[in-house]
């Protein structure tokens, strides 16, 4: 029979959320975390909120960059290349 995971408090769980998402918890901590989630809707919501934050953050990094490059940057590149040693 497997041992029952250690009980976690909600207040302890929120401190572990990033380690959980980053897969840095020990097997024992992870089991306790998962067991807590099964019976705690507010902590499940908290975890979902954090996942939403991360998904939104990642999407900020995928900004559309199809706009043209500013002419002054191209000038800058041209000037740099003309004076850089061959």
């Amino acid at each position: 029979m497997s041992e029952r995971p250690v009980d976690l408090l909600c207040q302890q769980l929120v401190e572990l959320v990033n380690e959980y998402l980053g897969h840095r918890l020990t097997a024992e901590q992870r089991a306790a975390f998962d067991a807590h989630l099964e019976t705690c809707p507010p902590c499940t919501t908290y975890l979902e909120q954090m996942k939403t934050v991360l998904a939104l953050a990642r999407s900020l990094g995928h900004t559309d960059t199809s706009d043209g490059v500013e002419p002054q940057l191209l000038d800058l590149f041209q000037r740099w290349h003309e004076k850089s040693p061959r």
Partner: protein
Amino acid sequence: MSRTAADLETVAALRRGEHAAFTSLVRAYQPAFLRLAQGWVRDAAAADEVVQQAWLSSLESLSTFEGRSSLRTWLFGIVINVARSHVRARKRLVPISELVTEEATDGPTVEPERFFSEGEWVGHWSDGPSPFQSPDDALERQRLRGLLSRAMGDLPPLQQQVMLLCDVEGLTGDETCNILGISGTHQRVLLHRARAKARAWLEQHLSEAERR
């Protein structure tokens, strides 16, 4: 082609003066450059100036790029150096080590008042979080992205940079530590605190918006 070979080829193309290589680099990194610069230099025009200076510094230092880190990591390091030099020229620049001390302090992730402090349910939520509306449609996602941008704009500088590098740009913890010159432990604490604040900020603003 491996990442290093591709980066070295990009550098060689830039040194040959190939506009296409520079254009694709600018397209790939200009938004990230601007986000990183704005963390240190809040004024939009000054941040633009920093970004332009960072591109010039990158080109001028190309001969020193050896492929030990990715080109992206190397470029981000230059942006942060240029932005911090810009601040240093105008006011006292707080050293990174001091920022770490200020921003990586221990403290609760969620305000203690939101948990029962006594009784049978001590340590459990007394005021649990309400689910964020699911960002199903493009408009709602756009709104939430805008809110998160504002939330991150409110973070202390180092927390903001760590969250930008790790969560927005997708760099590893090690790459982030190298760019900012901080330890892995501090990087994790800063990221933890940044995400917690961003979540709390979103929660607060979304619930205020619902009440209106």
